[in-house]
């Protein structure tokens, strides 16, 4: 029997998702034995035309990482959808927008101004900006359109499953691959990770009291963080209450709070709003009835970048999707 065909593709991403495939270690050999990889730009020399030559639906599953910033990315994922039985959004960027999604605080114009003119290390006296079409020595050169807004994968194509994480941990990847090979998949649209919030599986959860009150917000570099106590108890913003578990708590174990890369738990429409709600409730909880307006404002202002903190990974997937400008 012919082996199922699998494609890996990348869009606006950092390469970390490719790394996680390598991090499967010996397991990658089992995967390579079981499937036939037809596309993997980081490692294998297949081209777009090779995909075009396949029949519709011939690829069993495409794992697509990265968010969608360019027209070329949109075209490629549309082609992959047509050729694939299943599409898995692989990693935070494809799932909820990821770090490239922070670009949604700007638009094309402001990003180009900054990147091609404003950055001190750039020398561009004529102020040339990337063009979609230019003629050089009689030759027409084209570049893909750069969109104003970064989109998640499912804002661009129909996605069957999601593997969350920045990057997704190898055990979840392996579980997903096995589930696909065995045809043992949950309902379409499922996130292939536990449904609970991170606090439920956190190694520090026993140090988290019933009632937490933050009287002063601390940024990780401002204090020496205790390696065993819940970050919120230490005044450090942790998105564990509003983020899906399944990551293996790697950041927490490295003594860094959760930044939210796994996205919201099932049934939550807006991860940032959920996180904001949880954090605001415990800010100055102790003695809240005596807090003056000024004191409240001062405490709230200690969260210097709420949008960047609560939507660090998920701005494109949030209800508002971007800054309005």
């Amino acid at each position, binding site marked *: 029997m012919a082996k199922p065909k699998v494609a890996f593709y990348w869009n606006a991403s950092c390469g970390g998702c490719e790394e996680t495939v390598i991090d499967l270690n010996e397991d990658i050999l089992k995967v390579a034995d079981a499937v036939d990889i037809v596309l993997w730009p980081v490692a294998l020399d297949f081209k777009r035309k090779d995909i075009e030559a396949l029949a519709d639906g011939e690829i069993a599953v495409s794992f697509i990482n990265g968010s969608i910033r360019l027209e070329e990315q949109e075209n490629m994922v549309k082609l992959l959808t047509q050729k694939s039985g299943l599409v898995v959004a692989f990693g935070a960027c494809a799932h909820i927008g990821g770090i490239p999604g922070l670009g949604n*605080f700007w638009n094309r114009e402001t990003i180009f101004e900054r990147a091609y003119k404003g950055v001190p290390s750039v020398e561009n006296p004529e102020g040339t900006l990337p063009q979609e079409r230019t003629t050089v020595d009689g030759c027409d050169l084209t570049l893909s359109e750069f969109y104003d807004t970064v989109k998640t994968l499912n804002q661009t194509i129909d996605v069957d499953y999601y593997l969350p994480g920045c990057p997704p941990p190898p055990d979840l990847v392996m579980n997903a691959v096995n589930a696909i090979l065995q045809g043992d998949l949950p309902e379409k649209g499922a996130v292939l990770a536990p449904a609970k919030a991170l606090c439920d599986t956190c190694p520090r959860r026993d140090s988290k009291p019933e009632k937490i009150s933050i009287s002063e917000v601390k940024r990780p570099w401002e204090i020496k963080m205790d390696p065993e106590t819940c970050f919120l108890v230490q005044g450090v913003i942790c998105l564990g209450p509003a983020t899906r578990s399944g990551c293996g708590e790697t950041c927490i174990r490295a003594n860094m709070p959760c930044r939210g890369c796994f996205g919201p738990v099932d049934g*939550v*429409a*807006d991860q*940032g*709003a*959920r996180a*904001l*709600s949880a*954090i*605001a*409730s415990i*800010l*100055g909880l102790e003695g*809240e*009835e005596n*807090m003056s307006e000024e004191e*409240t*404002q001062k*405490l*709230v*202002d200690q*969260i210097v*970048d*709420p*949008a*960047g903190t*609560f939507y660090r990974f998920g701005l494109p997937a*949030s*209800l*508002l999707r*971007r*800054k*309005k*400008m």
Partner: protein
Amino acid sequence: MNQFEPKILGFCCNWCSYAGADLAGTSRMQQVPNVRIIRVMCSGRVDPTFIIKAFEAGADGVLIAGCHPGDCHYIGGNYKTIRRISLLHNMLEQLGIEKERLRLEWVSASEGAKFAGIVNNFTERLKELGASPVKAQ
């Protein structure tokens, strides 16, 4: 004459503000018709998601009305609301939505006139601000 009529979504807590809004109505106070009211049990029940969703759905302004501090039926619901709205104000500004579009007010069951005044004043202010930037996109 194509005068802009802002759409306001109002969340009123069951125990004080909804009764206050009701009093404004039964006393036939003059009040502009720009607010649509949703009754919630407590201002603390207003999840920031509701507010963001309202803006996303095209509201020009969102009004949260609850019991005066100290009077919340659930003792401390409105204290949390104060902090949520304050943090949300900061966050909405970063996302290009002016903080004046989100108002938190205290209205007791006997303050019908106050409620009507808030609605009139908020509507005026939103007319000056213009349509929500969310709609423009």
